[in-house]
């Protein structure tokens, strides 16, 4: 498998083609946070909304345009964290960041388990310019969480 094919694995292509969580959901929750992030390389923008229900990440929806990597990544993010506990989400975020930094090498089994489908992004780590793309939704999620907690 070439590096290029490793980056654009089938899972990623599928998520990119049919992204999950797209469309900002109106939330009837007290703790809601939103974040707008821009990838300055290409002008791609994402707006992501998080709703917390106690310790649970009850809702993660988003809107925006982007490359297949950024779209697939936010789609996977939605799948991974919606419905999970805050704590688990934080761990997942951390694992994903580690994966991006791993220069194309995998992570240990525990963290890969945590990431599930998201381990397919391992190939992105070989392309520093694309890490930004993969991180766009995650950066928005991190920031939205902070906003949501502020509303406590």
């Amino acid at each position: 498998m070439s590096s290029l094919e490793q980056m654009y694995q089938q899972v990623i292509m599928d998520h990119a083609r049919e992204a999950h969580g797209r469309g900002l959901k109106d939330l009837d929750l007290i703790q809601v946070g939103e974040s707008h992030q821009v990838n300055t390389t290409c002008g791609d923008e994402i707006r992501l909304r998080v709703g917390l229900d106690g310790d649970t990440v009850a809702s993660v929806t988003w809107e925006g345009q982007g490359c297949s990597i950024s779209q697939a990544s936010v789609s996977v993010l939605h799948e991974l964290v919606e419905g999970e506990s805050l704590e688990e989400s934080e761990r997942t975020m951390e694992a994903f960041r580690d994966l991006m930094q791993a220069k194309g090498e995998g992570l240990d089994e525990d963290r890969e388990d945590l990431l599930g489908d998201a381990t397919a992004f391992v190939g992105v780590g070989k392309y520093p310019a694309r890490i930004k793309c993969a991180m766009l939704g995650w950066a928005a999620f991190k920031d939205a969480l902070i906003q949501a907690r502020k509303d406590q």
Partner: protein
Amino acid sequence: MLLPDLREDFPLLNRTVRNGKPLVYLDSGATAQKPRVVLDAERDFYEQHNAAVQRGAHLLAEEATELFEGARTDVASFVGAGPDEIVWAENATAALNLVASGIGNASAGIGGEDSAQFRIGPGDEICVTQTEHHANLVPWQALATRTGATLRWIPVDSEGRIILDDLDSLVNDRTRVLAFTHASNVTGIISPVTALVARAKAVGALTVLDGCQSVPHLPVDVKALDIDFMAMSAHKMLGPTGIGALYGRKDLLDALPPSIFGGGAVKIVSMEETSWLEAPMRFEAGSQPVAQAVGMGAAARYLSALGMDRVEEHEREIAAIMRAGVAEIPGVRLLGPVGDADARDVIGVAAVVVDGVHPHDVGQVLDDAGVAVRVGHHCNQPLHRHFGVTGSTRASAHVYTTAEDAHAFVEALAGVPAFFGVNR
């Protein structure tokens, strides 16, 4: 007629990239590669003549000053200017800002009566076009904010051509500055300079030309164009990074207040006040980019030796190959004029949009084939928005681009839709 293959002059072009593939460098619109003569000129400066210029009385300082001012003369004659009409700046962006901030400073009282001709304020207008690079848009937005003047712009049509229909109302008696690009960094279209300058002159507006995409690629003569200011970038014309230049008509430069203040630009300084030197020195505060100037001078000489007429012709032929090739790929759209007739007034740039594939993804596939292009909005968001996209994939040529490079781009691009499973 194409230029001979110049690859031997450009060390970097001989390296390989991903998967051991030979490099096909088509990102010259962002920055050009450097011929050995430019690198040698810089290195020789550092190894034999490096010293602070214009102030030292020792031998090295004399030699350094001679090389530095000689480079200014080389760059000046490259664009038909007088040597003291050339101001070094960090890049073209800084050169454009120098004009905008100078006008802003004049409006804030800096420069006193000598600079009064540049004062603008509420009721005055600054005019740009819809095809400007951010570097020739944002400084004017900021000037408008600072002074209370109004920013207007000339729209472009669906192919990206400047629409002249409403020129007389857009550039009017209130217009103090008309700033526009000589050639678009997205569509490659060469602007109707004559018509724009004529209208600006008729209403007494200053003209500021963004020469970033023209000076490296076609013969440019500032006196023939009859413009007041022009910005250019060394790194796009085979010169070093870290330097550009502003051309300004001498009488205007001598009256415009500086916007970077410091040593070397001043005549007499007391704790209370300061008087400026004449141009170009008044704009060159601090230690100058000396080695870079020497490199830019060498680049101008290299291009002159090739002959800018031949350079223009070469790049036009490369553009034709790219444009014709792109036109044959289903699901790929060229931003800018389409069709043969238009190729006459377009520089060697082809920005494309692949239906259903994001530019970043397009660029990645090209990169994998060793083809280096630019993806994104190329610092020109408004024009992309006008075309209904956030970004594009841009191939851009220079003197060293070969017909094979152009074909390699087309071939790699043709494989993109299939790779992403679109357009089947």
